[in-house]
């Protein structure tokens, strides 16, 4: 535990000095503040923020994760020759680099929300958006880690996969769902559609945003499965549970790969 915090602290120190995490936080600070100044009241800002969050945090997170692996190769190898076990080192590095990025988003976005009073007016929605951004950061930094470790010696491939995975999860995946809905429209599709969205972390986060802001529209849908899912706590629980799985699986795969990898 002492070792873990030692590694985490060291990563924090160097990242903060690297300034670009601070720059990232400042971007969200400026963005949120501008939205609040020119975009009207609470729900508009939170929804614009969540759109930006759903689109860019996955991309930034993955690139950030994979870049870290590529840039710190020799350093990580040096650390691996020290008398510590790989598991500790992995968690130290992962937590050390993902949490500052997460904190940059949360702080950057919450400060303007705070001084414009939205945090007080609509705390549950604000916290929901901030927390989702945080969780997405953690998930996609882990995915970036996995990609970096998997394509350790082939950076072009690594970055290529990053972009493809992002495009797929952020846009194409929903396109496929829509296509399926139109192609198999004669069959009952509710279960399939809910199941499909549960498998994509961006969709999961999106559904949780919908549960906060669009519940009145969702309740207009006639299907019983939808109503049970969205109308009760079941939807929120399932979605947050699946997000937790999505956080656990990539970090766990990352750990597996890291432990077995030849450096």
């Amino acid at each position: 535990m002492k070792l873990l915090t030692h590694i985490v602290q060291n990563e924090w120190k160097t990242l903060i000095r690297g300034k670009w995490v601070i720059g990232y936080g400042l971007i969200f600070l400026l963005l949120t503040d501008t939205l609040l100044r020119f975009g009207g009241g609470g729900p508009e800002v939170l929804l614009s923020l969540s759109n930006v969050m759903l689109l860019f945090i996955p991309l930034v997170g993955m690139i950030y994760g994979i870049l870290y692996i590529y840039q710190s190769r020799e350093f990580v190898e040096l650390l691996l020759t020290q008398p510590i076990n790989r598991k500790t080192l992995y968690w130290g590095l992962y937590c050390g680099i993902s949490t500052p990025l997460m904190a940059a988003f949360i702080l950057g976005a919450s400060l303007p929300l705070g001084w414009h009073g939205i945090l007080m007016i609509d705390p549950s929605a604000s916290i929901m958006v901030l927390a989702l951004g945080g969780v997405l950061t953690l998930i996609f930094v882990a995915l970036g880690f996995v990609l970096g470790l998997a394509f350790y010696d082939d950076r072009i491939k690594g970055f290529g996969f990053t972009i493809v995975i992002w495009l797929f999860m952020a846009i194409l995946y929903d396109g496929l769902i829509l296509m399926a809905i139109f192609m198999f429209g004669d069959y009952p599709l509710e279960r399939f559609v809910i199941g499909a969205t549960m498998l994509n972390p961006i969709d999961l986060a999106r559904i949780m945003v919908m549960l906060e802001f669009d519940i009145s529209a969702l309740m207009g849908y006639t299907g019983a499965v939808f109503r049970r899912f969205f109308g009760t706590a079941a939807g929120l629980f399932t979605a947050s549970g699946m997000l937790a799985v999505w956080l656990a699986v990539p970090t766990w795969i990352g750990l597996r790969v890291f432990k077995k990898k030849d450096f």
Partner: protein
Amino acid sequence: MIQNKYIISLILLLLPLTAWAGQEQIIVKEGGEISSVRQAVEIASPGDHILIQPGTYHVANLEIDKPLVIEGVDRPVIDGESVGHIFVITADSVEIRGLNLINSGRSYVRDYSAILIEKAKDVIIEDNRLENVFFGIYLAETERGVIRGNRILSFERREAASGNGIHLWNVKTAKILDNVVEGQRDGIYLEFVEGAEISGNRANDNNRYGLHFMFSDNCIYRGNIFRRNGAGAAVMYSRNVDMVENLFEHNWGTASYGLLLKDMSRSRIERNRFYRNTVAILSEGSNDITVQRNDFELNGWAVNIKSSSQRNEFLENNFIENSFDVATDSPRNPNRFEGNYWSHYEGYDLDRDGIGDVPYRPVRLFSMIVDRRPESLILLRSMMITLLDTAERIMPVLTPETLVDEKPRMERIR
């Protein structure tokens, strides 16, 4: 000045007292000389004042056929014992106030009510509590009644087994003011009513509608709250109705809406707030209605206007983060949208006159997709859907070309 006011209020206070001078006061008290309400009504002369002392009294189907004031002291309980009506008022100028009426009969055939007012004028029903009643206050063929400050709370969740809170049938110029109706079938029901004023009422958690309004012309309802009902207000088959400053919120469900307009004409909907309803306004076959300066916020659909509705105008409203701003069923739509604020508007204002330089098309392609394949609703707020909508907005193919706000506001209208 101050003295004058003082004197005037003193006179006002004393006025009723002088009016009582020629009237008898009858006191009903448990174990007292007169211990039943029925007995008191029987012995009373017109114009008498019956004071009911605290306690529980059994009253069923008691007809009040002479002008009386029946008043409770510290809200005595009048138990109808689930038999039939509790009070049936057939005389003019009856007043009932300060009672706690419980347990009217229930029936699938007869409209048992706590207070039924039949063919009577100038009746005042004020400051009563009604609990576990089938119908609450029922006005039939009456004129100039006032129903004020009553609380009607029942907990029957089945629509068919519950009655309406305040029910008006064939009534002229009634005033329904500051009542609270919860857990009934319809909160307030009007049929064949002329010139009623409905203000400051709260109709929450009713099984069907907060306000049910049919064949009733020249009415106004203002400053009411309709919350979490099966549907907020259904306003149908009437003309010249003013709907002002009401709050419609949290009316959710598959067939749910804040305000249903069906075959309405020449009416005004102004300065209302629609918040988190499945459909804020659903309009079918309604014409010449002005919808102005309302706030539509976080509704599923702000406006669902069927093409059977014509010449309606939506002016200076705020549309804020509704899942869908406007939906319609036809590529042609003979209604006008102008000068509204749309939070989804992405245009610019180069000449800085507060009006966007690019027209806004409030019907999303996605709303038509959802119409055909409801399951796709789950893709709401997906990046892919945003791309589709944007493409359609730039080059409209499927969405109605005529449904455009040519002068969208850049900022929220306050």
